[in-house]
């Protein structure tokens, strides 16, 4: 049961959504009967676990022993929904949006961790995203960019603004892709960014490659903890 996005030859993003059963798409979660996904979400969000939107794209902290088997499948689907279709979460009744918070910087990763190749955001960068209402676009970028720069470590970082200039957001790609190939991939990513409605992000993003990353962090593999179940 894998979730992800793939780049088609035309440069468009194709979402691969997980299935609860072979024929059931994640979009149908809201209408599922038993187990009642709405109640389930209530439990997950309000009682049993902590959800934190930090840097990530998503970190789910839970050390609850009940989170096994079918529950884990539901959790994974919900995770996927949040990752791929965050705007739909608000449409599910009795749920609340995950908080975009920088306050959980010390959150310990426990049983489940869904993360990406991204280095954590700085508070300054998170503030910039919040002020411009770019949270969902940042999540989108964190999901999408690794598909364009497969294997690379990535970083979203606020660049220093010079006097009288607007701030720009860097997407640093730590890799060794050739200049022409990197440019092609960058252009494809920009095209998809515009086609999927992230124009505001497009207007402030600067995507470039660095050969050497600074020390102190490691790339996490995509869905490592979940897929190791």
């Amino acid at each position, binding site marked *: 049961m894998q979730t992800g996005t793939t780049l088609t030859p035309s440069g468009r993003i194709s979402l691969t959504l997980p299935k609860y059963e072979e024929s059931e798409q994640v979009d149908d979660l809201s209408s599922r009967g038993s187990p009642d996904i709405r109640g389930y979400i209530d439990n997950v969000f309000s009682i049993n676990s902590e959800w934190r939107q930090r840097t990530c794209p998503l970190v789910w902290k839970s050390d609850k022993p009940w989170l096994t088997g079918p529950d884990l499948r539901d959790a994974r689907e919900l995770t996927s929904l949040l990752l791929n279709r965050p705007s739909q979460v608000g449409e599910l009744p009795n749920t609340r949006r995950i908080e975009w918070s920088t306050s959980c910087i010390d959150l310990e990763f426990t049983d489940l961790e869904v993360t990406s190749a991204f280095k954590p955001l700085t508070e300054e960068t998170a503030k910039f995203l919040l002020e411009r209402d770019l949270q969902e676009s940042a999540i989108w970028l964190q999901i999408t960019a690794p598909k364009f720069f497969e294997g690379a470590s990535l970083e979203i970082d606020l660049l220093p603004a010079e006097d009288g200039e607007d701030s720009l957001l860097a997407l640093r790609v730590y890799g060794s892709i050739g200049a022409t190939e990197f*440019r092609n991939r*960058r252009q494809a990513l920009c095209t998809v960014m515009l086609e999927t409605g992230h124009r505001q992000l497009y207007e402030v993003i*600067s995507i*470039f490659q*660095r*050969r050497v*990353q*600074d020390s102190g962090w490691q790339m996490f593999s995509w869905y490592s903890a979940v897929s190791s179940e």
Partner: protein
Amino acid sequence: VDGKCFLGTAQFLQNSGNDEAAYRSAVSRAYYACFLEARKAAFSNCSLNARTRAHIRNERKIGHTVLIHYFRNSSNRAVQSLGDDLASLIGSRQDADYNMIVTITADDAKNAIDDAKTFLTDLSAVPKAEIGQAMASYIFQTHRTP
């Protein structure tokens, strides 16, 4: 001196030996070669009416990020791509000039120079009127009638 001269300076710096400060300066000069040429193309092809609206009396009134906005605002894909290239180059340049945490290597300098060469080649190939139109269009979208 015109902007393209800085590309030669960037190449000189890149080949000056194992010196990160030189690599950083090469990245910076590569960007400026592109910025200055792009700014000249935008200013000289934008209508006087639009420039007046934005109080742009000379090239120096055009800033770094707004120049990227002009190009990215174009309906011409080639011009828009130049804006993406310029955005990439300026980000790399800001790292090179201000971010002492990251390491800038000889390959980073070479990449920046290769990117700048591609940018200048592409800039010379696109219809200049499209660049002027993109700048004017952006100004009319963002500046109210005086």
